[in-house]
């Protein structure tokens, strides 16, 4: 397959060819039902093609540069290609090119297995869940991930287990100039009244073109309480897609933090279905975009049952010629009476050239609900800057302080002090780089 063939408008031919080239190997290593899932996903991808800006959900994010690039499936690597982020504490799993490296840590109350091992040795754990929350019928990148599903991580928290130690998954890539694509997959199953904190970080080297196409699924049973933190720390030339799709049972609670910092072209999705009465979720997002970065956050919260609550706050800080997109949908189904949903998106522009497209969207089909949403885009408040300066605080310092304070509304929600400090340091470094330049 030549690279030229990749640039067809919908961009799917090269991916189909890539699949067929690897299919004998993929089929040999998987049970029939899994390979059937892959094939269904592939045929759905063949129908959909890569998203284009004609699709409403992709209106402001153009994947043409991705469609033009010829990617190779990343080979397995036996060792971690790099050191993981030092600030993350907990039971750490390194996933290199989407494959968890052995040995996996042992945590009481938690089953940690590679997906490849799980679908051979414990198919009953996986088969009823995999692909059930991340619906590939409606999403071509999820379909692509599912078609190339080769390995991944299963995290199962037993019924009633309250896991104290955070579970940390660090994804790494070693592109070595070969423009690799990885399709990381994580399946998190939280049993009834289980409690756990999970961090998932995506990292990679600067200066290398690669594509991370990641999908994480969460099934939270009745009364489960999960905190999930996503850290997108990709290299500066990376294409990054990650989708988190969660189903929450009765009275289950999910807090999902999402920080997007790295990458050249980034799309980060959260889809939460509040499928049980009294379920609740909190989605917090922070995106820092500078240079020519493009960071798109797309979130969907579906209220399917009564008395569920959702609170969403996404904040963006943009510098240089960066572009950001926030598209947040809240869907309230007819049965979901007494829904309480709050959604806010706020953006701070530090330069004249930075651009934000924000689109909060409520779709309400029930009548007894309380839903509010709002979006703002603004610059550092000139009155506040003058106020601080009039007290002796230097102009730079005043802007720094106000920008940190803006981010603080999101970072203070993080339970991990070290992640909060890391994000603040990253923000400060960017501010200094921007002001120095």
């Amino acid at each position, binding site marked *: 397959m030549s690279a030229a063939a990749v640039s067809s408008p919908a961009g799917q031919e090269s991916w189909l060819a890539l699949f067929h080239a690897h299919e004998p190997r993929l089929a040999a290593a998987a049970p029939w039902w899994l390979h059937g899932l892959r094939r269904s996903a592939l045929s759905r991808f063949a129908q959909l093609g890569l998203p284009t800006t004609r699709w409403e959900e992709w209106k402001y994010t153009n994947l043409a540069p991705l469609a033009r690039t010829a990617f190779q499936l990343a080979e397995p690597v036996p060792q971690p290609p790099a050191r993981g982020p030092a600030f993350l504490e907990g039971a750490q799993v390194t996933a290199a090119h989407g494959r968890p490296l052995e040995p996996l840590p042992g945590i009481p109350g938690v089953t940690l297995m590679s997906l490849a091992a799980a679908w051979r040795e414990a198919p009953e754990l996986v088969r009823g869940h995999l692909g059930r929350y991340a619906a590939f019928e409606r999403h071509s990148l999820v379909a692509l991930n599912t078609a190339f599903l080769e390995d991944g991580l299963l995290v199962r928290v037993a019924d009633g287990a309250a896991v104290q130690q955070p579970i940390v998954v660090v994804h790494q890539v070693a592109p070595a100039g070969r423009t690799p694509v990885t399709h990381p997959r994580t399946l998190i199953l939280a049993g009834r009244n289980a409690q756990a904190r999970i961090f998932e970080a995506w990292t990679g080297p600067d200066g290398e073109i690669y594509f991370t196409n990641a999908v994480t699924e969460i099934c939270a049973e009745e009364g489960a309480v999960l905190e999930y933190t996503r850290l997108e720390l990709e290299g500066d030339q990376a294409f990054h897609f990650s989708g988190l799709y969660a189903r929450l049972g009765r009275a289950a609670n999910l807090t999902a933090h999402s920080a997007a910092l790295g990458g050249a072209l980034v799309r980060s999705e959260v889809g939460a279905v509040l499928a049980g009465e009294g379920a609740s979720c909190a989605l917090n997002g922070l995106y820092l975009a500078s240079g020519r970065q493009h960071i798109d956050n797309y979130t969907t919260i579906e209220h399917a049952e009564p008395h569920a609550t959702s609170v969403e706050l996404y904040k963006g800080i943009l510098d240089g010629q960066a572009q950001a997109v926030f598209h947040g949908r809240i869907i309230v189904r007819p049965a979901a009476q007494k829904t309480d949903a709050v959604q806010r998106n706020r953006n701070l522009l530090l330069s004249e050239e930075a651009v934000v497209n924000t689109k909060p969207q409520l779709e309400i089909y029930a009548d007894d609900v309380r839903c509010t949403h709002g979006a703002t885009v603004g610059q550092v408040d000139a*009155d506040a800057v003058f*106020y601080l*300066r*009039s*007290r*002796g*605080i230097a102009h730079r310092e005043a802007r720094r302080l106000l920008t*940190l*304070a803006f981010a603080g509304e999101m970072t203070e929600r993080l339970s991990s002090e070290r992640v909060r400090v890391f994000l603040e340091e990253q923000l400060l470094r960017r501010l200094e780089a921007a002001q120095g330049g």
Partner: protein
Amino acid sequence: MLEIRNLQAKAGDKLILRGIDLTVRAGEVHALMGPNGSGKSTLAQVLAGRELYEVVGGEVLFEGRNLLELSPEERAREGIFLAFQYPVEIPGVSNLYFLRAALNAVRKHRGLEELDVMDFAGLVRERLRLLGMNEALLERSVNEGFSGGEKKRNEILQMAVLAPRLAILDETDSGLDIDALKAVAAGINAMRSPERAMILVTHYQRLLEYVAPDFVHVMAEGRIVRSGGKELALELERQGYAWLEEEAAPAQAG
């Protein structure tokens, strides 16, 4: 200490200050009065370095230095303090952090050692007692959700912490109930000293019942049209500002 000569300033195309002359010496308290739109607040903001206003004529000397060439933060470090008419809310920045950052910026400029959290907490508590302020206000974000009275007291607290040489208080008395007014006045009186000068910008005579000024100036249409002792404030209280219109018109022609 402060020498203003024929100061003229514009906001956009509009000339607001039309030639201000004012001399303030150390230890003096000056009240600057006048109707709305007379330019009192503009003068206060120009002295603090607000970039919304463009100085188009005249000069301002502070301790013999050209004040107008200094940035707002340099003015503050040199000892100028403006209590804002409308203090700005700054979500996410704690009042305590803000006060310490401000004081340390000023101390550093004066070659003094910066204060650590413990030393600073001691200093602030003492000033709070002086103003009868609630310590809980320190933990909250700067002015966020403060009542009108709390905001004005917070300005006085900042003044007490920064100990400026020249304090300009822009309508710090407006919108206060009598208890808050007394607390603010007590704070101002406690800060009076032979080394410190104050300019009280006020629309009403009310504050001056509690803080006796050495001089009273009346502004109209961008100029000081009358100056006198504290009895001038009482006269204004009786007569209002209507008489100014007759006086200001010929003054402008001349």
